[in-house]
Structure formats: C-alpha cells, structure tokens
C-alpha cells in the first residue's frame, strides 16, 4: 500500500493505492494517522479509489485508524469505495461504522455540513 497525503480545506485527504492486506501496512497507516492527529487535524478522509483490493486484515487496519480518530475526538470518512470493497463492508456490517461516499467531492461536502 502507498499513501499520498494532501489537504482540501481543513480536511486531510489520504489516498491509498495498491493493496491493503496487512504486514507492514498496519504500522505505516497507524503511524500516519497518529501524525495527523498529533498535528491537531480533526477531519480525515480516506480515498480508496486507487486501492486495487483489500482483505479482512486490511479492513482491520482501517478499523484501527477509525478507532484512533474517534478516540481523539476527530472524524474519519471514506470516499471512492470500489464495488468489491463496498460489498465486503456491507456483509460485515462495517458499512454501518464507516461514513462512506461515492466521490471525494460528496465526502468533502459532508464535512462542511458538520
């Protein structure tokens, strides 16, 4: 997995690419989240549009990020969730945990409403 980071207004956008499947990915992702929270950011958007696939270990990595963000009083959302990944979120009921959007624009707009 690779991570590209940028800011859109007061939202930090992380673009994940490649595959999210465990191993080193867990520490890389969690450290990035901690850095962002440590800088005082409160809104994080994970763009999954370039992620080719994810396994259940990768889902666990996203959950660990979600938990860290929530515990810090911040908000994490997902955008550009591919059909294959969305179907896994649905059957595992993680779709009820993650606030996810079809496009980055919709996700960013949802942050503005809060």
């Amino acid at each position, binding site marked *: 997995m690779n991570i590209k980071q940028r800011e859109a207004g007061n939202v930090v956008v992380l673009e994940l690419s490649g595959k999210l499947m465990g191993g080193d990915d867990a520490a890389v992702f969690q450290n990035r989240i901690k850095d962002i929270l440590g800088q005082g950011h409160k809104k994080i958007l994970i763009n999954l549009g370039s992620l080719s696939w994810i396994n259940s270990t990768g889902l666990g990595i996203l959950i660990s990020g979600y*938990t860290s963000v929530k515990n810090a009083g911040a908000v994490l959302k997902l955008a550009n969730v591919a059909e294959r990944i969305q179907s896994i979120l649905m*059957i*595992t009921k993680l779709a009820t945990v993650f606030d996810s959007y079809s496009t980055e624009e919709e996700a960013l707009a949802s942050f503005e409403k809060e």
Partner: protein
Amino acid sequence: MGAPESWDRVELTVPSVLDYLSLVNAVSEEFGLQMGADEDTRNAINSSVVEACTNAMEHGNGLDREKRVILTLRAAPGRFEIDVSDEGEGFDPEEVQDPRKPENLLRERGRGIFILRNFMDEVRFRIEPSRGTTVHMVKELK
C-alpha cells in the same frame, strides 16, 4: 475433492508470505475471466480466495515461509470449486464469532471465514492434525 478430471484445473503453490496474495488474486481473477464469470462472481471468488489464503498463511502456517499454501481452482459449466490447503495444526472454524454483533464490530480481526461463508455457496473445512487444513469452497454460477 472428487471433481471430474475433465474440469479445467489450475494449481498454484506459494510460500506463506503475504506479498504473494497479489499473485493469488491475479490468478483467481484471470481464471474467472477465462471461464466467463461475470464481475460480481469474480469479486466474490477473488475475495474468498484471498481470505482463505490469508488465513492459511497467517493462522495455518504462522507466516513460516518454508510452509506452503496450495490453491486449486476448478471450473465446469455453472460451477467453480476451490481448495486452499496449508501445512498447519488446524483450528476449529466453529469457534469463529459473528463479526456483525455490536460487541465485535470494531474488532480488528476475525472476519475472514465469515466473508468466505457469505460469498460462497458452500464452505467446508477438512482438518488433519499435523498435516494441515484444507478449506473447500463452491460457487454456483447463476
């Protein structure tokens, strides 16, 4: 497991290294394409194959790269059968908790077998202590 020899059959053996999951996914996707499976079916099969191989590498073989995971894909008109075998000690799949329960929803592990059972039409485990576990999966084409 008892499939006719006339079925198309592909076998892949990989070490228990997570990086090989990309190859596993690619082989599964290409096999599905070659057999004419639609995108939904391929997604279900690919996700299940990756989950089964992840389990075999991590929980079966303990990520010991000397231990192999063997993936066998078979297809006949209207039907896919998949076996994933490891060389581990085996485990009780019935002990796996439902990850959809509120108390389990934010657990970081424990979704792999649940995903298999939801995406595939049939999932069976053959556990042979000291020889390994084989998970046998069937997907009927609609």
